């Protein structure tokens, strides 16, 4: 009798107990360390129909996880943008505060607005020049004060 034809030896009592526990675990009674592996192999080979309620629950949970992760990214991105904008505002304020701004000055312009009526046919030129010089003298003084920083 060859080695191959030789009958397997009888199982030991320990092997019999393990086999019994695995069979019961596969039938849904009790647990066994090889039962999860056997189940996974079974579902991979011939997956059963999934319960619609369970499917909905799984989808909701997955989407909720995705949104939690996505919103964190959005908050971080816009939060950083806002912080940068505020930092720029502060920098601009500080910079502008340190630069002396040009004073508001009265500019050269027509004197037409000093006169409300046509000039008399004869005379009156000196009075007109007086009015122009006096008006611009006020502007000139205002410009001097503005340049000196007096308000």
């Amino acid at each position, binding site marked *: 009798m060859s080695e191959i034809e030789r009958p397997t030896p009888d199982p030991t009592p320990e092997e019999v107990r393990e086999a019994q526990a695995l069979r019961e675990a596969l039938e849904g009674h009790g647990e066994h360390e090889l039962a999860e592996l056997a189940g996974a192999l079974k579902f991979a080979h011939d997956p059963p129909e999934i319960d619609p309620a369970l499917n909905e629950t799984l989808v*909701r949970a997955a*989407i*909720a996880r995705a*949104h939690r992760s*996505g*919103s964190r990214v*959005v*908050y971080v991105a*816009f*939060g950083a*943008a*806002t912080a*940068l*904008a*505020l930092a*720029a*505002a502060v920098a*601009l304020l500080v910079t*502008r505060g340190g630069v002396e*701004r*040009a*004073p*508001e*000055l*009265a*500019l*050269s*312009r*027509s*004197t*037409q*607005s000093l*006169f*409300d*009526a*046509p*000039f008399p*046919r*004869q005379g009156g*030129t*000196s009075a*007109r*020049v*007086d009015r*122009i*010089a006096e008006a*611009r*003298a006020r*502007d*000139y003084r205002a*410009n001097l004060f503005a340049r000196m920083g007096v308000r």
Partner: protein
Amino acid sequence: MIADCGTRVRSPATWIASLAAIVLVALASWGCTGRDRGETGGASSVAAPPVDTILMAYLSKARSLHHLADMREEDGDLRGAVAELDKLMTTPIPGGAQPMQEALEVLADTYARTAELRGQLGEFDAAERDLEQGLKRAPKVSFFEGHLYEVRGVIAQKRAKALADKGDKDGSEKQRRRAFEDFDQAGRIQDKVIERLLPDAGGHGR
């Protein structure tokens, strides 16, 4: 369900993004306007210079010369009055290549006065030359321009009378027609100025 979740997630983010955008745009525009103000010396016109010492010196000189001319006229010295005012004609105009508006207007008015004085002296050609110079400097559609045309009409009227006295009937009539034209032109200009200045006359004010 997904749309609901999307709305819930985007709303706060949109608010934050909007706030950030508003802050950035406001800062950018404020920065730009501030820079413009600084470059133009705080005024709307870049070209116009501020009222300065040179302009005031010019106006002061013009004022003095006109009062001196007044006194010469009071003394009956019309040539002396013209001579005083001629000093302003040879004074450099503030602003150089871009003369300051006040100086141009005072100079134009001074030319009108010298023309008037020369007309009284019977120096009609010289008077007309002064008026041409004045019209080159006076702003268009202004009391200054209208006054110059008015004085030109007066000069033409005087010239017509002088020619008539000499028996030059054609020459006199020609000058009379010129006087009519100049007075009409002066009237049209003054009407436009008044219309522009007075809202009651249909204008929009100054």
